[in-house]
């Protein structure tokens, strides 16, 4: 490689354009190419809130952020180094996320008077010509013109030609970052194999973009980002919702029970339904119910029938499931309730992320209705976390709530995927014949779990329901002592799970010290990066990330008591913080962000620094 090339240890690129500009595809291609080269990475798409907001406007901007590097990458990144702006709206919407001195790659055709007006720039103002971007490195390319030029002889129509614009940009970026084209070429071959002219056009434009970099070398530097020191193994890239679907299928295979999904579509959970619907050959049933209540009730029916039953939704839909979740808990049937959290309250910000449904998961039911709660910390982690949720549901005969969120659901990262053979099997408490002394539907084992007696087994005919039930027999009981006993028993059963889950570990730092940053769910990456940086700067800070929110790992209290200050960053007003304060009587403090967006590393670092220097 030429020696005027700079070696960087990480780069953040934001691809932004109109919904129709193909930025998601462009981003994914660059991502996969980076992955193949051994970079560590993390991505996050940024969809418009509307189905298709008007072309050229700010609400219509679709973005894709990629953070890749030769070092370990924990988040999609804070401020970006490079902003690809296919039109004026894309620039306007994203400029504030570009670091000072960062590079803008602007498609000049997207800054014509019409686009400028749609992006609501003042009359006569054009940011790419008026010098207002002097704090940045501006690379203006007339992508449309170039693309058309490359395809003059293709015989294709203008509309079709213009659709290849994103390949030009991709090609140019491949040049800039010294990437091979072969991954994308293969992809195009597969995708357009049956349409040779479209294929050829795309390949041509991709190369044209690359060559444009080569030939006009003056306008941009080239960079090298070397492979990252990742654990050896075979990797793939995966998004959170995808990993959730795979985790469910894997669990289904490993407990030997067919998977039943009862769901009603809702952003950002719907993709799990879409995904699972493709796995019918694994015996997966996806049932699109008439509403969320029907969805969870179908799950109760399927669980009664002896299957691995799951429902997926997001906040407003979960709210509707509260009553039936109580029934599931009372019946003591296994089921998994997945909440891919989004911005609330009410309809809120459907396409944005938030962690504000923790209280709902813990307390959002009538009566004393404890349900285990588990969360995932990253896109790939959805796999393990949902697998664990299934295990607990099945082994303890209980509903389990699994919390994901819009950030990890749509974000992606490399995943050293497991081998099927390495996944631990688990099995249901099935009872297949009448035990000596007679069958007692609510007789408990050492886990306090009851037997799973499914229709079809002779002699185990029995009735269950939502009224309070007598210990062991499960018959209706209005006895006051029995009620208290059973309420305590159901609580004890959930608490018992703590004996069957791993102890809390520290992600980073000493076991005793000044500051512990305690996180849950998708804040993992940002906290990890911030704590790493703080420790590198010599601050006394450790990091623990909770997966098991109910019950907590048995040693959590011990860990907390070893620190002077507990800092809990959350994308809500402080829900875990409340629970920790209540349970452990430690004056934990919150760092709260309620902007529909994940934390940046900087934000968390700043808070740590503030606390460390106090």
């Amino acid at each position, binding site marked *: 490689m030429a020696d005027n090339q700079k070696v960087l240890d990480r780069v953040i690129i934001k691809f932004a354009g109109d919904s129709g500009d193909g930025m998601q595809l462009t981003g994914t291609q660059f991502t996969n190419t980076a992955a193949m080269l051994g970079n560590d990475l993390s991505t996050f798409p940024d969809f418009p809130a509307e189905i298709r907001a008007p072309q050229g406007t700010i609400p219509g901007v679709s973005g894709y952020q990629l953070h890749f590097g030769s070092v370990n990458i924990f988040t999609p990144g804070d401020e970006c180094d490079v902003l690809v702006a296919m039109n004026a709206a894309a620039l306007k919407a994203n400029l504030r996320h570009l670091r000072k001195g960062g590079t803008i790659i602007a498609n000049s055709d997207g800054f014509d008077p019409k686009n400028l007006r749609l992006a609501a720039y003042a009359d006569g103002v054009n940011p790419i010509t008026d010098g207002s971007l002097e704090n940045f490195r501006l690379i203006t390319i007339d992508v449309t013109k170039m693309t058309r030029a490359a395809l003059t002889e293709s015989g294709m129509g203008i509309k079709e030609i213009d659709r290849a614009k994103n390949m030009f940009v991709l090609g140019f970026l491949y040049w800039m970052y010294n990437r091979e084209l072969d991954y994308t070429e293969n992809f195009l071959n597969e995708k357009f194999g049956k349409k040779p002219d479209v294929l050829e056009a795309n390949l041509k434009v991709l190369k044209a973009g690359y060559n444009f970099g080569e030939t006009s070398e003056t306008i941009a530097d080239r960079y090298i980002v070397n492979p990252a020191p990742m654990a050896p193994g075979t990797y793939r890239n995966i998004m959170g919702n995808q990993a959730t679907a*795979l985790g469910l299928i894997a669990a289904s295979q490993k407990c030997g029970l067919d998977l039943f999904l009862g769901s009603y579509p809702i952003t950002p959970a719907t993709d799990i339904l879409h995904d699972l619907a493709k796995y019918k*050959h694994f015996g997966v049933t996806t049932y699109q119910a*008439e509403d969320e209540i029907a969805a969870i009730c179908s799950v*109760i029916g399927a669980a009664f*029938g002896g299957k691995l039953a799951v429902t997926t939704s997001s906040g407003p839909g979960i709210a509707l499931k509260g009553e*039936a979740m109580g029934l599931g808990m009372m019946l003591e049937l296994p089921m998994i309730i997945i909440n891919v959290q989004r911005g609330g309250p009410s309809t809120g910000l459907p396409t944005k992320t938030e962690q504000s449904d923790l209280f709902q998961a813990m307390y959002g039911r009538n009566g004393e209705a404890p349900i285990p709660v588990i969360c995932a910390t990253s896109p790939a982690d959805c796999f393990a976390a949902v697998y664990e949720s299934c295990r607990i549901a099945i082994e303890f005969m209980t509903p389990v709530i699994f919390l994901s969120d819009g950030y990890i659901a749509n974000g992606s990262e490399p995943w050293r995927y497991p081998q099927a053979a390495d996944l631990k099997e688990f099995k249901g408490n099935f009872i297949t014949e009448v035990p000596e002394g007679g069958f007692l539907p609510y007789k408990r084992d050492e886990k306090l779990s009851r037997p799973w007696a499914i229709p079809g087994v002779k002699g185990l*005919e*029995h009735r269950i329901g939502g*009224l309070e039930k007598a210990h062991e027999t499960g018959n209706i009981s209005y006895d006051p002592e029995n009620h208290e006993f059973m309420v305590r028993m159901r609580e004890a059963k959930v608490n018992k799970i703590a004996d069957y889950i791993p102890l809390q570990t520290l992600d980073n730092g000493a076991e005793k010290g000044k500051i512990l940053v305690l996180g849950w769910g998708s804040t993992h990456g940002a906290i990890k990066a911030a704590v790493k940086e703080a420790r590198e700067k010599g601050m006394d800070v450790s990091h623990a990330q909770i997966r098991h929110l109910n019950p907590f790992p048995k040693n959590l209290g011990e860990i907390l008591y070893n620190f002077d200050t507990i800092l809990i960053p959350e994308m809500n007003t402080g829900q875990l913080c409340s629970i920790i304060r209540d349970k452990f009587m430690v004056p934990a403090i919150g760092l709260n962000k309620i902007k529909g967006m994940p934390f940046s590393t900087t934000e968390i670092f700043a808070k740590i620094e503030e606390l460390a220097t106090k």
Partner: protein
Amino acid sequence: MSATTTSAEDKKFTSKELVTDQEVRWCPGCGDYSILKQVQTVVPDLGIPREDIVFISGIGCSSRFPYYMETYGMHSIHGRAAAIVSGLKCVRPELSIWMVSGDGDSLSIGGNHFIHLLRRNFDINLLLFNNEIYGLTKGQYSPTSHEGKVTKSTPMGSIDHPFNPIALALGANGTFVARSMDRDPVHLKEMLKRSHGHKGTSFLEIYQNCNVFNDGAFEIFTDKGTKKAETIIIEQDKPLIFGHNADKGIKLEGFKPVIVDLNANGNSANDLWIHDEKDLTKAGILSRFFDRPEDGADHLPRPFGVFYSADRSCYEDGLKDQIELAKSKKKADLDSILKGRETWVIG
């Protein structure tokens, strides 16, 4: 529910073996007792092993039913039984699933699941005990209570126009729609058998007397003095005849049902409306015998029997077909999906 095919020997059990150890706790005189008895009489004859039978209910007096049936059962939450049976039938199509519900349970809070169950046509039997009242909560009007009904929540009389459950079920694309009553054990047993025999969602409305909060709501249909004049039993391919001496018939003038006196000159049973369960339009007219009578129209008897019965594929069959097809086309290889389309190796 359609018949299953297990060997006859396996299935033998008696009505008594359907009685549970739980004390039946309906008010003395409640119509639910009779329905329970008829169900317990009919079920052993259906040729299904007891362990393959499931009764699922919502909440209400009627929904206590599963506790009294020595089969698998679930007393769920108010209005949701239809959704629960749907899920169960998806995964266990071989079971004989019976849903028991009330007019409040299925037509008020559970209305949505009710209509969706009917359109999807899961092969289950839905017994709706219609007492035109909320029994368990002690007497509020229900979606089937007639206008003007004075109840605890309507001291000046109800102003809600009621549902016509049969018409609603037809409108929701139900494939089997029938009506019977608690006080006609013979007819009720017949209808239970027919419901079981139908492949698809069998909707059986059962008029049930709540003698505590709505006593006598159906008295004219059950009282000896009025029953014959006020009810008509509809049977496939039979003319519509009723009356104390089977002396009245119904024929259609255009779309208008009119009563004819079979004793009068020139009227013959041959001219009467012949019941055809396959005819959706006629089923619609039958369903409207009692509401919306046009001015000057005849006062018609209430029909009991199968209004409509049609074949249509069941959801669970489509589901099974798709899963089998998918399985036949593609191997379920967990490693391959974990791996995905593209991978790379490090180290």
